[in-house]
């Protein structure tokens, strides 16, 4: 078998994680914006600023979507971080895992501790 040709690598785990974070956040923000603006008119909510900034409806949609996207990104990225950096002991089986701490009666190998309240 010829192995001399360089192999095109696919993305590594971290790149795939970030791709999932960006895409799922996008879908969630889109669904959120869809439902939100199905129920509310953005111009009703920004009436107070209208004098100064004169925000049009398209810009209001865009800003709200961006805000929702950022919130979803933050939540997804934090979730990814929490799952990928969990403690190695007592959770994942196999290499790198601490063994379950051994527990026994203190007086078992220390007769002078016999009769104490920690049996």
């Amino acid at each position: 078998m010829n192995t001399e040709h360089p192999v095109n690598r696919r993305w590594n785990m971290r790149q795939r994680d970030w791709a999932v974070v960006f895409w799922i956040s996008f879908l969630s923000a889109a669904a959120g914006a869809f439902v939100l603006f199905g129920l509310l008119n953005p111009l009703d909510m920004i009436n107070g600023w209208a004098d100064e900034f004169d925000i049009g409806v398209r810009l209001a949609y865009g800003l709200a979507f961006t805000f929702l996207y950022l919130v979803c990104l933050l939540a997804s990225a934090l979730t990814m971080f929490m799952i990928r950096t969990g403690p190695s002991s007592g959770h994942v089986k196999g290499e790198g895992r601490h063994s379950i701490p051994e527990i026994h009666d203190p007086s078992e190998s220390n007769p002078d501790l016999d009769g104490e309240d920690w049996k």
Partner: protein
Amino acid sequence: MSAQQGAGGSLYEKEAKVYPRDVKGTFASLRKLAMVVLLGLYYIVPWINWAGHQSVLFDLPARKFYILGLTFWPQDFIFLTLMLIIAGLSLFFVTAVWGRLWCGYACPQTVWTEAFLWLERLVEGDRNKRMKLDASPWNRNKILRKTTKQVLWISFALWTGFTFVGFFTPIRELGHSIFTFQLGPWETFWFLFYSFATYGNAGILREQVCKYMCPYARFQSAMFDKDTLVIAYDESRGEPRGGRRKSIIPSEQGLGDCISCTLCVQVCPTGIDIREGLQIECIACAACIDVCDQVMDKMSYEKGLISYTTEHRISGQETHLLRPRIFVYAFLLLALTAGVLWSVNQRVLLRADLLRDRNALYRELPDNMIENVYTLKMINMDFKQHQYRIEVVDNDDMVLFISPDPTLEPEEVGNFILRMQAPASAGHGSVKVDVRFSTMEEPIIERTVSTRFLMPYE
């Protein structure tokens, strides 16, 4: 069946339930004291009144936050943001100096878990009794104890949920609504939701929250350095560990000071062995220090085999309390706190917003006068009624008419129509106008607001 399962099952396994043993000692007493003070504040503060209001009340429908005699309006949102930043910085500072002090003594998860554990011990007994009870078949004793525990846990959780809602709805009215079955739907939802969250987190999940769910535990390594206080086992002194009689001299038997009693593991609320080294699961509650000191005492050894120390001290180097990151955190914390206190103290208890009438730029009146119409929104943020004087600053040409009479009750929001008139000869185009609002009564509260007066361009 997936390939993973086919190759030998899931990579994950359920953890064994942790039955932390009760412990007595200096740090256990401090932890209990922290629990009593913090839970005491949580449950009692909403029942105390201050300056005619509940001492802490986040009145969302009225959009007013009452905090210890101060009223914060939506316009004061910046203070809330700054206070949150101060809280975050305080956590950074405390973590950099004292390590996971927050986790071990003050975190709501720790405090409520401690309270739930106390109730559990009260009904089911200490560690061994609880383990035996769980392993025994269901009988009258087990049903009775488990039911009693659940009743106590659920009652405590419901009281917690009730108090939580009491920070958002006046707690006395809330209590009355509950006893007369007139609780609103949203209050009912939050009451039950927070009760359930308390029960689930403190009764069921416990250490799993700290180990797998808490982001602070993961981020804290960024605040740690080798001079941060940690709880550590003195390996050089303790190893090799092993059981022995009290009468022997350990060094002659080739033993260290650790007698391998495993009590440090048994008291640990997260079920770890501190002798394995620094671990992310350690919440620094110091239960292992207390129990190890007791054992050392019994064996007539020097205390401190497990102790509060620093990585530098463990490796025989000097510990530095004062270091650059401490100065940076302390400086930011002091500057922000001083800034917020000064700003709150300087707050003007009057807000006024002038919004131009969007239907017409200006109106031409007889007598060659030009009129602009504004909607004036005023908020009296004081606890007293005020009548206001409204005048244009440094512009004698302008005449103001306001209706109705600008008088506001304490904490009242009022909307008024303000008409401003000036002779057409006074200017062209857009003219900047400063309008001053001041109270008729002493001490005078005043605020000046700028707006634009529009006139014909030609």
